[in-house]
């Protein structure tokens, strides 16, 4: 058999592998650079970017939980202008599609951020974070109501020349309804899941551990929940789906692909194993070789039958 291919075409982007980074876990790409070979990544999704700089939440911001972690970073970032001038130019020299994750306090802020980004070179796509549980206004609220989710999407699409990926919140009764609403509003792809809202209480201090009280749960613990949502959404929409939530091995990446994900995002697993992307690519290639599969795309949704 000839060499199997991991190449994926995703809403106009060509990825050399379906492995993307999950926003907020990979900084602006370069923090991990000596440890992660960019050739192992299909795309890099940078930290959530907002119109103005955001300070973020007060510490503690993270906490380990059984097979997972809570985070309440609060979208600390330098703002879109500083991103364009200080961060982006360092990343563009690499041969790697760059996806900018965007957040806002109001619906209007999303197109405003995009307006700035449209002037910049070297961006492959936008990802709208309508699902961050760690900011008081906006954030997740946009992602829990189909109407609002659709209007954020429409506002972004109206101005964006690049593909718009919408990232869904899993903290909803019916995620397919939100997915269909953003698809109808023009989303070019859907990514899911963002973190699940959780908290932990310090039994000695008798108050929540995190400075922000609540945080977002990520890591292997949420994987079964994320796989179920990807399974449902991928069958309910026609646009490509980027699956994520607890992927930490080629086996778990493949679970998402079989459930219907065209590409997958890796977040928390980078913290545990910075070489995870390489390991997944290798594992997928070995599996495909053994099973006689030419192209990874043949496996997308293969578990639906």
């Amino acid at each position, binding site marked *: 058999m000839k060499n199997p291919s991991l190449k994926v075409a995703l809403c106009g982007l060509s990825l050399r592998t379906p492995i993307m980074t999950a926003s*907020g*876990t*990979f*900084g602006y790409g370069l*923090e*991990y650079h*000596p*440890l992660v070979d960019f050739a192992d990544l299909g795309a890099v999704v940078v*930290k959530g970017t907002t119109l103005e700089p955001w*300070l*973020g939440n007060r*510490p*503690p*911001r*993270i*906490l*380990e939980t*059984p*097979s*997972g*972690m809570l*985070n309440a*970073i609060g979208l*600390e970032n330098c703002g879109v202008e500083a991103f364009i001038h200080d961060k982006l130019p360092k990343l563009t020299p690499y041969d790697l599609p760059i996806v900018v994750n965007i957040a806002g306090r109001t619906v209007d802020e999303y197109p405003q951020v995009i307006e700035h980004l449209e002037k910049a070179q070297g961006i492959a796509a936008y990802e709208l974070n309508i699902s961050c549980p760690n900011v008081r206004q906006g954030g997740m609220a946009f992602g829990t109501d189909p109407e609002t989710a659709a209007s954020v999407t429409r506002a972004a699409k109206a101005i964006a020349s690049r593909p718009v990926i919408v990232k869904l919140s899993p903290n909803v009764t019916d995620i397919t309804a939100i997915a269909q609403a953003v698809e109808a509003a023009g989303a070019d792809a859907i990514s899911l899941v963002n973190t699940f809202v959780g908290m932990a209480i310090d039994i000695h201090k008798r108050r929540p551990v995190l400075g922000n009280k609540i945080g977002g749960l990520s*890591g*292997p*613990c949420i994987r079964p929940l994320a796989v179920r949502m990807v399974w449902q959404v991928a069958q309910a929409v026609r646009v490509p789906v980027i699956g994520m939530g607890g992927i*930490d*091995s080629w086996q778990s990446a493949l679970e998402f692909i079989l459930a219907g994900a065209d590409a997958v995002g890796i977040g*928390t697993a*980078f*913290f*545990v*194993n*910075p*070489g995870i992307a390489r390991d997944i690519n290798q594992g997928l290639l070995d599996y495909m070789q053994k099973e006689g599969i030419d192209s990874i795309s043949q496996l997308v949704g293969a578990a639906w039958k």
Partner: protein
Amino acid sequence: MITCQAKVILNREVKPGYYLLRLVSPEIARKALPGQFALLRCSTKDLTDPLLRRPLSFHNVTKEQGEISFLYQVKGKGTKELTRFVPGDTVDTMGPLGKGFQLEPTKGPIAIIAGGVGVAPLVYLACMAHDKGNTVYTFLGARSTESLLADPDLVRASTRFFAATDDGTEGFCGNIIELLHKETNHLATCTAAYICGPEPVMAAAVSLCAKVGIPCQVSLESTMACGVGACLGCTCRTTRSHNYSRVCTEGPVFDGREVILDEKP
């Protein structure tokens, strides 16, 4: 900065609840500086609990042998799992990380101030300062002789070695801050102090250094995920800027005048 499977040479309980771990990693040993740290994976490969790597400061480094050692206190499940590694096993190790201590260019006396397992990062520093020709005054505190981590290398590197135990079972009877107050004359002659320990101890030591008018550096702790500045999870406040600083990259060593410490024990 690399990740590697570092072979265990030794993993021994040196005092009840405190372990010395020695690993082989020539590449990390070559680059590691005093005050920098490594992230160690405490579970075996496919297990997801404990999930995150644990940060440990370099306790000592022998570049010739390519060995790095850590002194750790068994606190929770990560460090408890770490005690299970035996010589011949490998530990998934990532480092060196962070910004370490800055040794003064002069050969003036320096002060090493450590509470409890806070001594861990200071041994490597003391050895290096001693080799450079500095006079080293070491102030080491603990609950009791049972937990006083008077590492032989540290004792050797120290021109004067002052110990304090809360229960008086070894050295001065009292806490390390009381000891420092008693020895202010030594402290005041120093060109810099290097401090690590529980936050209230660090806070008091920083105040005292300010009072006697010497600069000081402290090594902070924070829960970490990435260790490389990517996740923004480990931040602390400093007086340096309006923004948060990342303990893993702007630190873990900060100028004592800049940090905002919790003074409550």
